[in-house]
């Protein structure tokens, strides 16, 4: 369970990026965080990744108050979370296979385990035949699928996706969404920040809408807009 409890983040200039945020995410949920640029989506994600610390309130991650995690334990904490970026962030000099192996080598895993797991995740994202390709030989959608494979290979409980379809066309976005839904069905919690109305309306998941740093809507099932 992930719980935001009266979380406020005030940046140095005195402007509150998010204020008084309260919500709970249950294991296995798929949740859209929507809102315009500057509404506070990125701040929420950064708070959850412990990139920044709340000015007030606390964040509970599966029973642990992450505001109290010590600096040297942050790396350990982040291993619970897979992160997908809008701009994929693949390492250009490594092949698809090596990019995924890189994420595993950093935190664990015997070579034998790595050799066994990578084909499985590549198969999940439908890129089994691209293992030896370099990122610049792939389309945007394919790159994002590699990034997803990299995010799930360490089997995190939670995946945070920050505008994962932001750079992609409609068709490709749907493919990404299909994979994320698939991962969610296997029990992984997915938190996705987006302003892609079409996707949010189509998938009808839980939606948290932010406006000027506050939650103005939190519905179990809904679309991008507060429609009847």
């Amino acid at each position: 369970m992930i719980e935001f409890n009266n979380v406020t983040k005030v940046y140095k200039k005195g402007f509150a990026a998010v204020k008084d945020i309260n919500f709970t995410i249950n294991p296995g949920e798929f949740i859209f965080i929507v809102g315009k640029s500057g509404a506070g989506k990125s701040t929420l994600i950064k708070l959850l990744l412990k990139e920044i610390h709340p000015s007030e309130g606390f964040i509970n991650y599966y029973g642990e108050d992450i505001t109290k995690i010590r600096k040297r334990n942050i790396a350990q904490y982040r291993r619970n979370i897979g992160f997908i970026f809008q701009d994929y962030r693949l390492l250009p000099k490594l092949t698809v296979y090596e990019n995924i192996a890189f994420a595993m080598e950093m935190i664990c895993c015997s070579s034998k385990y790595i050799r066994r797991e990578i084909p499985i995740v590549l198969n999940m994202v439908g890129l089994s035949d691209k293992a030896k390709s370099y990122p610049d030989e792939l389309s945007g959608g394919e790159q994002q699928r590699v990034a997803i494979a990299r995010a799930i290979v360490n089997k995190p409980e939670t995946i945070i996706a920050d505008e994962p379809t932001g750079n992609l066309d409609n068709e490709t976005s749907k493919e990404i969404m299909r994979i994320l839904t698939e991962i969610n069905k296997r029990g992984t919690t997915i938190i996705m920040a987006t302003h892609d109305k079409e996707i949010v309306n189509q998938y009808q998941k839980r939606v948290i809408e932010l406006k000027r740093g506050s939650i103005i809507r939190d519905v179990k099932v809904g679309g991008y807009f507060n429609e009847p």
Partner: protein
Amino acid sequence: MNLKKTKYIFLQAFKSMWRNRMMGLASIGSVTAVLLILGFVLLIVLNINNVALVTKESFDEVAVYLNEDISEEQINELGEDFKQIDGVLSVAYQSKDYALDKMKEDWGEDAYLLDGLQQNPLPNTYVVQLKDVANSENVIDELENYEGVEEVKFYEDAVNSLIAIADFIKKMGTGIIAVLLLISIFIISNTIKITVMNRKKEIELMQYIGATNGYVRGPFMIEGILLGTIGSVAAIIILMLAYNNVFDYLTARYVALLSGMSGYMVGVDMILSDLTIIFFTIGIGIGILGSLFSLKKFLSI
């Protein structure tokens, strides 16, 4: 796992060193420069002190060291004989025990170093006062011809001024070295900073994935340490080659003058190991500090 991590860290360090080889050379150069100056200062001070201790040459006093095995009587006889020599003003006897006590007094705080001696290594000595410095060579020749005389040495007041010079050089050197240390730490930290910038994306990614500090910081620390180590090695080689040449030149040239003496200069073999330890410590220290400074600023996600 650990082997893999080590391999990764070193590989990254080597790669980035190669990529920034110009900055790397500048860093190595700065470390080498600091250490060379430190080395020169150390060697100069060491040698001036050595000269002061070894020579004890003076203008109007000569020390006559007597053989270990001659009797009390012979010693007295020699004293009488010395007085008769033309050009000698006066003669004063210093027993070896007296000499040791005096040495302890001279060494002051460091006198405890002498406590470990099993037996008194100093010789019984006659201090011979000369009438005229210009005449000294003849007198010395004569003194040396006596049986029971082991060696004739010059004393000097100049010793004190040498020590003063050494002191001055030491102080100057310390100041210069302090400034240069800061400069080379700055240069190394800049070099590492470039590497950090080059790999910014990768480092960010590693931090999001949850890579341990070893993976994130390791390569930069190793890069700093390697730059420092290479700088130290270069400094040691340069300094030793230079010193060896000077040493050979001077000892070859003045060997006649110093016949029988161990030499004015400290031998290379005597200082090599100490200097190596000092240089590596400082060189690697600069490298680590440089890395830490640049990492502290840039790795804060």
